[in-house]
């Protein structure tokens, strides 16, 4: 029976070749459907990668005590009127929490920097405790981080993000140079390694880091972000979050029944909201794909019925010469599947090219082997489905009537 596959493939190839335009038009629906499905999967994979990369900035075992929740639908005014986070809570939290391994505090706001005649505007000044490297992914490329005593004494030292370093020091080593932040002089003690962007948008490389005490000394006033990062064991993060909530409530003197006036944020919040967005995109993509494959499939079924009709006499001849029903059925099924599989292949090639373009100009989106395999299997499946009814019709023809057909 194996030899029939090749024979039928040969017949199908010859047949499609002799109706080139018709074959191309028929396959176009499938091409579009496969482009939709493979591009959608590739994009989702790409965005997934981007997301996971971004999540690295927020350690899995990190809990962030902040005024504003990252997601949620609480009333803006209530949130706004919450008291600000007192960063000196950090020491108390460390003392009272069973789970806390590291407790770091940070503040931030933007300011303009300058070195000689060069300046960098709207740079995020990040005031952090000396243990900040333990709760984040910052990495010192050269120079060093500041010490605990520099933090305690409010030393005017600064580490530059890689972009900032490039702007202020286009050539030459920034370490030990003096720069200005506003009117204050800082000594550069290190440069941070390049970190990339968070969610493809906010660069981590346009910040500078100074000791928290120095920040407090220089920038008075209530503005800017304030956050206490509590690092806990990853697998206990849920228990730790509950405990932390209790600790902060006690420190803030909240009575039972009173609502929390702070938020404990974590990576999970991003994950959940990202999953939601992904499902929405994926769902829309599925509908588009399903529709275009359905329409493409109907087109193919239609053409196959025409093809069976046109070739009634041929079917009669083949049957008279000994072709069985299943051989005739196979012949038309393979023809239908050949149209859709070629359509799928073309669709795959086009979407590979498109995703290469996206990778080059937007974000990494590589066609995976799995997606390619799925696309081909799916298109062959559509062919099987669309070809079945016409193929059966052809296979069931009565040889005598088929031979008499004009």
């Amino acid at each position: 029976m194996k030899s029939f596959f090749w024979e039928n493939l040969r017949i199908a190839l010859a047949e499609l070749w002799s109706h080139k335009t018709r074959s191309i038009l028929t396959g176009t629906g499938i091409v579009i459907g496969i482009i939709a499905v493979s591009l959608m999967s590739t994009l989702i994979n790409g965005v997934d990668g981007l997301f996971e990369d971004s999540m690295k900035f927020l350690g899995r075992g990190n809990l962030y005590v902040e005024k504003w929740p990252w997601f949620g639908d609480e009333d803006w005014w209530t949130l706004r009127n919450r008291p600000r986070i007192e960063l000196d809570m950090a020491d108390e939290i460390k003392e009272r929490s069973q789970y806390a391994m590291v407790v770091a505090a940070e503040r931030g706001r933007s300011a303009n920097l300058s070195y000689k005649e060069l300046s960098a505007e709207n740079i995020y000044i990040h005031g952090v405790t000396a243990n900040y490297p333990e709760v984040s992914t910052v990495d010192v490329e050269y120079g060093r981080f500041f010490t605990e005593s520099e933090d305690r004494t409010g030393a005017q030292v600064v580490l530059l993000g890689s972009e900032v370093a490039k702007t202020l020091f286009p050539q030459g080593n920034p370490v030990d140079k003096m720069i200005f932040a506003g009117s204050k002089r800082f000594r550069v003690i290190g440069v941070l390694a390049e970190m990339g962007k968070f969610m493809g948008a906010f660069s981590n490389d346009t910040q500078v880091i100074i000791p928290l005490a120095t920040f407090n000394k220089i920038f008075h006033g209530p503005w800017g972000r304030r956050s206490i990062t509590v690092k806990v064991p990853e697998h206990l993060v849920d228990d730790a979050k509950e405990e932390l909530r209790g600790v902060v409530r006690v420190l803030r003197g909240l009575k039972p029944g009173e609502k929390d006036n702070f938020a404990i944020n974590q990576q999970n919040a991003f994950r959940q909201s990202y999953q939601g967005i992904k499902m929405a995109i994926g769902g829309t993509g599925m509908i588009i794909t399903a529709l275009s494959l359905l329409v493409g499939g109907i087109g193919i079924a239609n053409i196959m019925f025409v093809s069976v009709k046109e070739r009634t006499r041929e079917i009669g001849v083949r049957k008279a010469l000994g072709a069985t029903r299943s051989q005739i059925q196979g012949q038309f099924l393979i023809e239908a599947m050949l149209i859709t599989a070629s359509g799928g292949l073309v669709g795959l090639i086009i979407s590979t090219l498109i995703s290469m373009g996206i990778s080059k100009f937007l974000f990494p989106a590589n066609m995976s082997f799995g997606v390619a395999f799925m696309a081909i299997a799916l298109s062959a499946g559509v062919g099987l489905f669309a070809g079945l009814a016409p193929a059966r019709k052809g296979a069931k023809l009565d040889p005598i009537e088929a031979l008499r057909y004009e």
Partner: protein
Amino acid sequence: MSLIQVKDLYKIYQMGNTEVRALDGVSVSIEKNEYVSIMGPSGSGKSTLMNLIGCLDTPTSGEFFMDGIDVATMGDDELAHIRNKKIGFVFQTFNLLPKSTSLRNVELPLIYNGEIKAHERRDMAISALTRVNLGDRVSHKPNELSGGQRQRVAVARALVNNPAIILADEPTGNLDSKTGEEIMALFDELHKQGNTIILVTHEEHIAAHASRVVRLLDGKIAVDELTKRGKS
């Protein structure tokens, strides 16, 4: 044992209220290496009988043995198998595949045989085409051949599988008389080489090539006799 043994064969079509008795109790035996022509006026049941003997059709009732095998009760796939192995058809309208070369057309029965390798198929098809004097037309398509040449391709296709019987329904009906005689010479030759041939015709001079003639009338056998050639 006869090659073909038909007993009380009926083929009845129900057309609304009237029934058409295409075959109305036919009994006939045909031996190996016989050369039989079936004659009769239009509508007398010649093609119906041919189709039954060729296993393209099943009877309403009656017995039909081929080589001792009961064919009357066979299913579709078994009949396809018998057609492939034992029958070679020649049609009035040639029935070649228009887009395929002579070679491909002649190869077809071998392809559906399923057990013959590609290069053997090719050799067998070329030798069949050579037997009908078309060894130099293997890669021509039907529309590049004359009517007589097309019918010779069809004859090559009928004999390539080395069938037990060659069935020809009005094989000269679409040919001029000279080409018709050429085709008949080919059948005479195949008969001489040991083939069994049954042909349908309504022309006496074509029927005269055979050694036996079966005359049908209204689905019944009216006459079954030897021809002049058969007697000699």
